[in-house]
C-alpha cells in the first residue's frame, strides 16, 4: 500500500514495522509528531517524558531489559540527553535502541543550528541519515538490525525538511520481535571505572567493525551519470542537489554516516576531476574526505549556515540566479506570531510591563517567549529550557553587588518547562537563599509544540488517566516559603501579587493558573476550577470608546483599531471573552456581550 506521509509519520510507521516495544520523547519542533504518530500503534508503549534525558534513560532501561526501544527529540534535546547517551554508547544494548535527533538547519523554530552529526562521532556510535519519507521508514527498520548486530545505540539524524515534507511511502508489515532475554551482566552494564576502562576498548573494536560495514552498507551508494564532476552528499541535501544539478553530475549518496566509508570516498574522488561535498551546517563529511582527497570543494564555496536548497546550490556551483516576480516591500508589513486571543499569558505580561523599569526579565522556551515582541518587550534574555530561574538567580547575585542598581529579577517559564528542568533551577535558588521572583505560567499543557500532554495535564499520550503533578506543592516541598497561585485574567489579582513579590527579600513563586485557549482535553474537575471559562464574549460600546488605544497595550489580536473613526472594535469570531481588555479600558467602554447598559 502506498501513502503520502511526512518523514515524521513515516519514521513512526518504521518504528511500528521494526517491532519497537517502547518509545519515549519530549516534544520539540521538528520532532514532535513522531511520538504523536506512534501513539495510535497499540503494539508500542509510547510515553511523553518530562525531558529528553529522562526519555533516553527510560529507553536505555527498556533496551537493557531486552526491548526494542526508541528515543525521540529535537537537536537541542540531545544536549540534555547527552550524559546518559555517552555512557550507553559504552555499554551497548540488549534490545535494539535508536535515538532520533531532529536537527534544524535554517532554525525555523529553534534557538540554534547545532549539527548533531558531531554527536555520533563524539559518542562513537553508528549514525544514519534519511533523505525522504520512504528512507525514513526503511532506514529506521534497518537501524534496529544494526543496533543489535553491532551492540550499540544508533543515532538517526533527521532535519526539518525530512521531518515535515511529505512524499510517497510504500508501507510494509510489522516484524514481531519478542523482547530478548535479560540476564544480569555486571561487565557490560555497570559503568564503574574498572568496567568503563574495558568497555572503552570494546567501543574502539566496534568502531573498526562499523568502518568495514560502512563501506558495504546498502545505504551508501553511487549513482553514475558518466560525469567528470562528483557530488558527495547526505540527507535532504541529496534531494536538493538532484533538483539543482540533476543528471549532469555523479553522486555518492551517504545514508550511513558514522563512521564514514573511507574507501568509497577515496575511490569516488579518484574517478572524478572535481568533487563537491554538499551538506547543511558543519563540514562533517568534508573534513573527513579532505584528509584523503585533494580535489574536494566544500565550505570554501557553500555557506555554513541555513538550508542547502536548490537555489543555493545553483548559485554556488553554476553561478545561476533565478529571477521571479519582483517583491515590493511597500505592499506588506511584518506578521510576527503572537499570543492567541484569550491566551492566559496576556494578562500577566500586561501587568508586569508596568514594572518594566524596575525589573530584569529572564525568559525561557515556550509560547511566552512571544512576549519578547510588541507590545510587551518582556525578555532581557532567553537561553534554553529551564534556564530562566537559574540565570535570573546568577544575575540577581551580581545586580545586588551594585549600589546603584536596585532592579529585581523576574524569571518566567511554563508548566511543561518547569517539569522539564525548571524544578532543579528553582531548587538551586531557594537552597542558596536567592531572592528572585519565579513565575510559572501554568496553562496546563505543552503549548508551543501543539498541545502535548505533560505531568501536570492529567492525561498521557495513550491513556486519559494520569496522576497530576501539583506545581504549588512541589514549590513548597522544595522549600519556597512564598508561593501564590493566581488567575492571570484577573488583573487586580495579578497586580497585587506582583507588588507582593517585589517587596519580598526571599525566593518567591507566582503560579498563574489558567488553561491554554487551544487546549482540547479537560478533566470534569477542571470545570469547577475554571468556572465560567470563555462563556461570553466581550464587546465595545462604541459611544463610550474615546479611541485612547490603551486597550491595545494588551496585544490582543481580536482588538481592531479603526484609524478613520478612531474607535476600537472586537472581532467576535476570535474573542473568547477573557475580559483582559475589559479591565484595562479606563472608560468602561468594553463590556460582556449581553450586558444590560
Amino acid at each position, binding site marked *: 500500500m502506498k501513502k503520502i506521509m511526512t518523514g515524521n509519520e513515516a519514521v513512526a510507521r518504521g518504528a511500528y514495522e521494526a517491532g519497537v516495544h517502547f518509545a519515549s520523547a519530549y516534544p520539540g519542533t521538528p520532532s514532535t509528531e513522531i511520538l504523536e504518530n506512534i501513539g495510535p500503534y497499540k503494539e508500542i508503549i509510547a510515553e511523553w517524558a518530562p525531558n529528553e534525558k529522562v526519555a533516553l534513560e527510560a529507553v536505555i532501561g527498556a533496551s537493557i531489559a531486552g526491548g526494542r526501544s526508541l528515543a525521540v527529540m529535537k537537536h537541542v534535546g540531545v544536549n540534555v540527553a547527552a550524559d546518559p547517551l555517552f555512557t550507553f554508547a559504552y555499554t551497548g544494548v540488549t534490545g535494539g535502541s535508536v535515538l532520533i535527533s531532529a536537527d534544524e538547519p535554517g532554525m525555523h523554530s529553534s534557538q540554534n543550528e547545532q549539527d548533531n552529526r558531531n554527536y555520533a562521532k563524539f559518542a562513537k556510535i553508528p549514525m544514519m541519515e534519511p533523505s525522504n519519507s520512504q528512507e525514513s521508514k526503511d532506514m529506521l527498520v534497518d537501524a534496529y538490525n544494526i543496533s543489535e548486530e553491532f551492540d550499540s545505540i544508533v543515532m538517526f539524524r533527521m532535519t526539518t525538511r525530512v521531518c515535515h*515534507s511529505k512524499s510517497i511511502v510504500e508501507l510494509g508489515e510489522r516484524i514481531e520481535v519478542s523482547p530478548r532475554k535479560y540476564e544480569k551482566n555486571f561487565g557490560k552494564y555497570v559503568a564503574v571505572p574498572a568496567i568503563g576502562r574495558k568497555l572503552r576498548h570494546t567501543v574502539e573494536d566496534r568502531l573498526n567493525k562499523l568502518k568495514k560495514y560502512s563501506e558495504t552498507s546498502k545505504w551508501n551508494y553511487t549513482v553514475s551519470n558518466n560525469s567528470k564532476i562528483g557530488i558527495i552528499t547526505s540527507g535532504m541535501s541529496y534531494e536538493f542537489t538532484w533538483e539543482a544539478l540533476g543528471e549532469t553530475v555523479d553522486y555518492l549518496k551517504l545514508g550511513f554516516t558514522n563512521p564514514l566509508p573511507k574507501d568509497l570516498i577515496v575511490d569516488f574522488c579518484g574517478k572524478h576531476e572535481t568533487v563537491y561535498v554538499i551538506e547543511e551546517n558543519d563540514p562533517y563529511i568534508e573534513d573527513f574526505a579532505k584528509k584523503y582527497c585533494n580535489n574536494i570543494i566544500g565550505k570554501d564555496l557553500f555557506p555554513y549556515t541555513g538550508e542547502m536548497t536548490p537555489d543555493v546550490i545553483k548559485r554556488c556551483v553554476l553561478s545561476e540566479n533565478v529571477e521571479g516576480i519582483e517583491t515590493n516591500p511597500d505592499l506588506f508589513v511584518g506578521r510576527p506570531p503572537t499570543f492567541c486571543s484569550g491566551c492566559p499569558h496576556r494578562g500577566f505580561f500586561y501587568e508586569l510591563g508596568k514594572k518594566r523599569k524596575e525589573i530584569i526579565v529572564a525568559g525561557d522556551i515556550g509560547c511566552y517567549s512571544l512576549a519578547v515582541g510588541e507590545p510587551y518587550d518582556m525578555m532581557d534574555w532567553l537561553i534554553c529550557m529551564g534556564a530562566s530561574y537559574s540565570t535570573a538567580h546568577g544575575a540577581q547575585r551580581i545586580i545586588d553587588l551594585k549600589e546603584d542598581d536596585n532592579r529585581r529579577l523576574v524569571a518566567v517559564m511554563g508548566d511543561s518547562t518547569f517539569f522539564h528542568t525548571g524544578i532543579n533551577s528553582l531548587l538551586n535558588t531557594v537552597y542558596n537563599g536567592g531572592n528572585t521572583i519565579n513565575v510559572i505560567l501554568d496553562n496546563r499543557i505543552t503549548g508551543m509544540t501543539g498541545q502535548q500532554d505533560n505531568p501536570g495535564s492529567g492525561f498521557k499520550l495513550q491513556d486519559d488517566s494520569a496522576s497530576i503533578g501539583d506545581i504549588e506543592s512541589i514549590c513548597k516541598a522544595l522549600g519556597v516559603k512564598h508561593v501564590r497561585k493566581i488567575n492571570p485574567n484577573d488583573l487586580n489579582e495579578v497586580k497585587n501579587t506582583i507588588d507582593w513579590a517585589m517587596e519580598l527579600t526571599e525566593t518567591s513563586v507566582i503560579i498563574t493558573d489558567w488553561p491554554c485557549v487551544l487546549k482540547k482535553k479537560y478533566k470534569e474537575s477542571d470545570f469547577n476550577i475554571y468556572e465560567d471559562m470563555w462563556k461570553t464574549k466581550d464587546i465595545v460600546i462604541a459611544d463610550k470608546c474615546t479611541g485612547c488605544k490603551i486597550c491595545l497595550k494588551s496585544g490582543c489580536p481580536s482588538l481592531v483599531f479603526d484609524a478613520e473613526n478612531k474607535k476600537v472594535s472586537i472581532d467576535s469570531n476570535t474573542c473568547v471573552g477573557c475580559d483582559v481588555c475589559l479591565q484595562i479600558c479606563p472608560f468602561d467602554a468594553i463590556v460582556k456581550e449581553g450586558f444590560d447598559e
Partner: protein
Amino acid sequence: MNKNIKLVGVGGQGTILAAKVLCSALIDAGYDVKMSEIHGMSQRGGSVSSEIRFGDKIYSPVIEKGLADILVSFEQMEAARQVGYLKKDGVLIINNHKINSMVTLNGKIKYPEKIIETLSKQVKTIVIDGTKEAIELGNSKVMNIIMLGALAKAMKLDNLDFKKAIKENVKPKFIELNLLAYNQGLNK
C-alpha cells in the same frame, strides 16, 4: 514537466487542508508528489505556507524563489510578501481579504493599500472574493476550498478528481458544504 504550487496565508486559514486535498487528487492521478510546510512558531497568527510539487519524479520538497507556477494567497498582504516565489509568467490567485497583523492592529502602521492593483500589473492575477462567498455559504472556514476550486480551474488538468479528494479529507458532516464551496471556486 514538474509543476510547483504554493499556498500562502495566515495561521488558521486552512492552507494545510487545501494542500492535503490537492495532494490526494495528484497522487490518485498517478503523479509523484512532494509537499512541504513549516510547523511550530509560525502557527501563532504568523505567516504560513504550504508548497506542493508534482510531476514524473520530484526530488526537492521546497519551491525556490521565482519557480512557482501558481501562487494561491488566502490573504492580500501575504500575496505581496510571497509573490517573489512566482515565475514571471506564473499565475497569482488571491483572496480579496485583509487580516491585520499585530503591527497594523494597534494603528501604529497602516495596512498597505492598493495591493491587488499593484500586483495585477506585475503578474497575471485572478481575484476571488473567497471569504465573502464562504460567509454567504454559511461558514467562513470554507474559503480555503473556494480557493482550491479556483486553483483547480487555473491548473487546467482534467485528470484530477478533486471531489473525491475532498470526500476523503474532510469530516463527513462538512463534505456537502465543502463540495458547494469547491464548485463555487471552480465556476469563477
